[in-house]
């Protein structure tokens, strides 16, 4: 099996007295999209900037493309594309010139027009950077990171501040990267973004990884109990399945056997010619799990 693209063991980073990252382990395999999900201030950017070579770790082991990220050589840097959380480009150059300038730094760059196409900036090809909207500038950030045809791409909060349609577009771009076989290390504080893009998610809170796994099963999401809620006019003869009344006349029950429970309830209702009013059946969403794991700090901006 190929060596992992990123491997981190016991990574720590302190800023003076404050410990921003408190001993985390991560492994990212080749060709996978990995999302580091967490609220602001959880240590996401510190972690990703250590891996990109911008910060020195305080303790622990880290390997990026089998190299120590604190001492990346030029040949390794040429295999990495970086989209920083906040970054700028010269406002007076055009989109094409900007991408072309960065391409020149790499030994095997991709053609300019191909990169422009991937990020959907074709119409803005000859526009100056200072004439682009915020979303277009972010796409240019991705284009610059792609210009050198990297194997590994870091995306630090790529869609923060985007409106919903711009986010959809950005996600499509990341999906395109996946089809190109890139390994992507993504940080985000949006659950839906991690769910939509990543094959594996690690949730970070207060500098430690609190859960890790595929979005569908993370935090025991797949094995968690199903919640069923409903109302009945007259509960006479209702089988006792462990339901508890909520304040507003609604009954709620939690079960590991939803099929059986629902069957018993519907049979009971049909026999009486009645209805299960306002019936709801749901499993915890990634957001529920995330809120639970991070102590309710989700989306705190």
């Amino acid at each position, binding site marked *: 099996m190929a060596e992992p693209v990123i491997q981190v063991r016991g990574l720590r980073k302190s800023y003076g007295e404050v410990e921003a990252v408190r001993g985390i382990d991560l492994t990212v395999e080749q060709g996978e999209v990995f999302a580091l999900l967490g609220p602001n201030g959880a240590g996401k950017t510190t972690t990703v900037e250590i891996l*990109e*070579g*911008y910060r020195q770790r305080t303790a622990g082991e880290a390997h990026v493309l089998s190299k120590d990220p604190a001492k990346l050589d*030029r*040949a390794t*840097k*040429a295999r*990495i594309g*970086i989209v*920083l959380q*906040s*970054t*700028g*480009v*010269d406002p*007076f*150059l055009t989109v094409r*010139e900007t991408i072309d*300038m*960065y391409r*020149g*730094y*790499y*030994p095997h760059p991709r053609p300019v027009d191909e990169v422009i196409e991937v990020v959907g900036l074709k119409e803005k090809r000859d526009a*100056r950077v200072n004439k682009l909207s915020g979303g277009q500038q972010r796409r240019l950030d991705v284009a*610059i990171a792609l210009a*050198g045809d990297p194997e590994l791409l870091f995306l630090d909060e790529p869609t923060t501040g985007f409106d919903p349609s711009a986010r959809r577009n950005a996600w499509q771009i990341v999906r395109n990267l996946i089809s190109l076989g890139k390994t992507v290390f993504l940080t985000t504080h949006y659950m839906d973004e991690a769910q939509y893009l990543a094959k594996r998610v690690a949730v970070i809170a207060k500098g430690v990884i609190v859960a890790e796994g595929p979005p569908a099963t993370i935090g025991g999401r797949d094995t968690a109990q199903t919640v069923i809620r409903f109302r009945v006019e007259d509960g006479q003869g209702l089988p006792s399945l462990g339901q508890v009344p909520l304040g507003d006349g609604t009954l709620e029950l939690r079960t590991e056997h939803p099929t059986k429970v629902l069957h018993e309830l519907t049979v009971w209702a049909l026999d009486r010619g009645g209805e299960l009013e306002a019936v709801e059946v749901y499993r915890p969403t990634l957001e529920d799990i995330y809120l639970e794991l991070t102590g309710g700090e989700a989306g705190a901006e």
Partner: protein
Amino acid sequence: MSDVALALRQVRYTNKAFWRNPGAAFFTFAFPLMFLVIFTSLLGSGTIEVAPGVFIKQSTYYVAAMSAFAVITASYTNIAISVVFQRDAGILKRTKGTPLPSWAYLGGRVLHVLIIAVLLVIITSAFGVVFYSANVPSGVLLLKFTAVVVVGAMSFAALGLATTAIVPNPDAAPPVVNAIILPLLFLSGIFIPFGVDTPEWIRTVARVFPVKHFADAMRAGFYGAPEFLWRDVLVVAIWGLAGLILAARFFTWEPKK
């Protein structure tokens, strides 16, 4: 692509962006000419003794002084302020994440500044020839003069890069840079020529810092007096080297918090 080719390529893009910011480009070029006209109008009627027994018109004096001023503006002031802006905008941080060697990026900036400085000296001199009957160096003197401009522009650019280390943000850049360079320009006889009554402490300051040495060497290039001294060029180069060492040690690629 070789590293030198990378640096030269960087010069091309820096140059492109420079000329597309007409406000900045205009003032870089207009300032020295404007000061030349103002100072010559205010103080340019008399003559001045630049070396024992050598008198020149004050207007001619200002052509050399403003050429020196133009080089310092284009290199020191320009690079210090624009690099702080680029640092704050995250441009430097992004560049640091690419395989481009740091020296190629900064070397490209310094080379670009050198081109602008040479252009400015040519324009200021031409202006001086047309309006103020200044002499233009030729022959060996021209070679020496060119060496002075090159060493001066690169040294002041290196000092500009070092200065960015003490500038916290773009708002602070013009005041900090001007607070350093303006007093030195005055204390080095750029705007007001030294006379017999110039206090000794000012002369001492002028001897220590590179501005007067640079201006004297430029002046020697223009009218052969005072005598051209390689010592002046050496002092400027030593300051440039000091700037380079300080920049290598304290230059930062990320916005300061």
